[in-house]
């Protein structure tokens, strides 16, 4: 593979992508596409500015592959800055098609090209100022701002869980 270099990455999942991951919940949401090289401060600067406008009610962060952790991080930081946001998290697979061409391209003919199909996990997180349906899978209510630490075991509801502070 060292003779090939990646020419482009195509998203072959376009038919599922065109309506957007949260078309049913928030058709007019601000969409933030998080890539692997995105800078968190840039993303959050833009997102915070848009969310400060009262007209913007929802925002969606989506990322796939290596950007998933960054997406979750962005969402968590934004939730810290703006309290009272309702969250819905959706997981799915996205199929990508990478096209690799031989390097250096031989003169004349363009050379062989490889097409690689990858199925990468993707996450889409919707944050909304308005209340959402709690019955949605992946729904998470806004945190009631406890002692400022990380969230405690939110699914710790049975008696087997030790007492939380």
């Amino acid at each position, binding site marked *: 593979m060292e003779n090939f270099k990646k020419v482009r990455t195509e998203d072959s999942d376009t038919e599922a992508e065109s309506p957007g991951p949260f078309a049913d919940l928030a058709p007019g949401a601000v969409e933030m596409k998080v890539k692997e090289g995105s800078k*968190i401060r840039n993303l959050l600067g833009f997102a915070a500015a848009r969310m400060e406008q009262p007209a913007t009610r929802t925002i969606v962060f989506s990322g796939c*592959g*290596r950007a*998933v*952790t*960054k997406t*979750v*991080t962005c*969402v*968590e*930081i934004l939730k*810290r800055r703006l309290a009272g946001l309702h*969250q819905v*998290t*959706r*997981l*799915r*697979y996205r199929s990508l098609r990478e096209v690799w061409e031989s390097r250096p391209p031989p003169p004349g003919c363009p050379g062989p090209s490889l097409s690689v199909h990858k199925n990468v*996990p993707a*996450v889409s*997180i919707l944050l909304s100022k308005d209340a959402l349906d709690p019955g949605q*899978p*992946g*729904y*998470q209510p806004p945190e009631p701002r406890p*002692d*400022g*630490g*990380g*969230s*405690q*075991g*939110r*699914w*710790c509801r*049975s008696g*087997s*869980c*030790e007492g*939380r*502070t």
Partner: protein
Amino acid sequence: MRVVTRASGAWRSFHSWCGCSSVGASFLELLLAREERAGPGTRGGRRSLPKADMAENGETWGASEAELDPVEYTLRKRLPHRLPRRPNDIYVNMKTDFKAQLARCQKLLEGGGGGRGQGGCPEIYIHGLGLAINRAINIALQLQASSFGALQVAANTSTVELVDELEPETNTREPLTRTRNNSAIHIRVFRVTPK
């Protein structure tokens, strides 16, 4: 200078990252190993750890000189020993083989339904911290795909506080602590009855 990471008090739910899904390695060790490899840039929003922290040759940082590796046993001692709350908790890490963790989840899901035979849908919770978020999502989606629609997934996210302890080599200085945040995901995989 070396860094040890321990869970802060506010992090009680996740200190069992070393629990059932690993073969003895704690997530803190993997966190350290990850930082040595990847550097601070991938952490949750905090880029305060300079690369010098990861160096083993004792580069200076801030006011401290070469600091001793806060020996492993300190790491382990401070791990709160709360095991996974319930048998249907799975903590995903990057050290254990992916297939092994997937097989473990599958066994839990099948065993939970057939073994007990009581009413109610068996469900499992998959937890992932930091780099393991990706793997946790992968496991959950694989479980769903291989179940032919019998399983549903629901994910929640949270932030976990981690505390790094910097112990000075020379014993003249106080140990420093640094807190940073990391993202975590909790995925609930549950069986639904097809309508």
